[in-house]
């Protein structure tokens, strides 16, 4: 039951993009086609879950025992950056097909603030390892859901007649606002 609440809350109620404003750059950047949106969501899900496990272990077994919590930001970002590189190298060797699908998105992920954000939030919310993993995975699903819905809408927006000034980013942002409004309907469920 506890896990269910974490999942529902992370996907719908506190959607990472539309309610917490994390990972807006890829949300606006790779949402022009559904295909790329799916690829990006896959890469984010993979890295986010993995990064949360690793950063959690670092917090609990390195930073906490040595009481150097103030090094959290530096160590987490370094770990995430090297983890992304590592994932890229391993994927290339082990599963070229998956690498083909996710490859181009992996370097972009280092600067996706949702990854670092979720890693820090997991520590702040004092989850245990399993709860943290569930939380990270569900957050990534929420990211994917928002991204894919948004990409679907944007594909249609291309055909719409718009005033010149609104074309491109402005209308995308306004659409995201309306989407965020729709997601607000979920608040109060948990």
């Amino acid at each position: 039951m506890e896990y269910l609440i974490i999942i529902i809350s992370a996907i719908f109620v506190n959607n990472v993009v539309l309610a917490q404003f994390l990972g807006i750059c890829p949300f606006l950047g790779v949402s022009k086609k559904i295909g790329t949106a799916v690829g990006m969501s896959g890469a984010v899900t993979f890295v986010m879950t993995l990064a949360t496990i690793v950063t959690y272990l670092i917090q609990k077994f390195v930073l906490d025992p040595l009481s150097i919590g103030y090094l959290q930001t530096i160590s987490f970002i370094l770990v995430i950056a090297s983890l992304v590189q590592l994932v890229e190298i391993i994927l290339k060797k082990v599963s070229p097909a998956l690498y083909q699908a996710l490859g181009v998105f992996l370097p972009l992920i280092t600067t996706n603030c949702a990854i670092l954000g979720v890693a820090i939030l997991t520590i702040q919310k004092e989850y245990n390892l399993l709860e943290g993993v569930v939380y990270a995975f569900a957050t990534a699903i929420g990211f994917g859901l928002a991204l894919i819905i948004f990409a679907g809408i944007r594909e249609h927006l291309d055909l719409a007649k718009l005033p010149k000034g609104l074309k491109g980013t402005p209308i995308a942002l306004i659409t995201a606002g309306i989407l965020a409004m729709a997601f607000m309907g979920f608040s109060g469920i948990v």
Partner: protein
Amino acid sequence: MSQLKNFTKGILKENPVFVLLLGMCPTLGVTSSAINGMGMGLATTFVLMMSNIVVSMVKDFIPDKVRIPSFIVIIATFVTIVQLTMQAYLPALFENLGLFIPLIVVNCIVLGRAEAYASKQSIVSSIVDGAGIGIGFTFALTLLGGVREFLGAGTFFGTSIYPEKFGSLLFVLAPGAFIALGYLIAVINQINRAK
């Protein structure tokens, strides 16, 4: 390019938020009021200037292959300084900005300037560039925060302009951030095109 031009380019012509569309997460996340936007903007400006200085100083010693990780460590150092200082002296603002303070590390504006500008230019130019871009970012955040606060709560920098009950709460909540920024960018686009 003269230093003055170098300084002013970040404010309107190459404004990181309105024109280059970088650093969107803090832009949307912390601008529920003008003062929060300004605090975030100034914190980022500090990190941007300091990291530009250090990157410009060490650019000749860092091998090309490890430059991005080294830049990230330099940036993360200054972010930690800001984080601890703010926690000690401005606890209320620290509370409001929350998660977005450590997330300055992954703000693409900071890394972008280090990579694209400071790693190639002299120290003085890098300081001026950092200050210009930082002020442009602060300006954008304060403007967006001001608009949202005004429409949402009827206040400006905490001073009441009209009764709160006439305000539209939507603008203080998440959807209002997207919508307000969308219209602001549309307006700036029009202004830039008219020139």
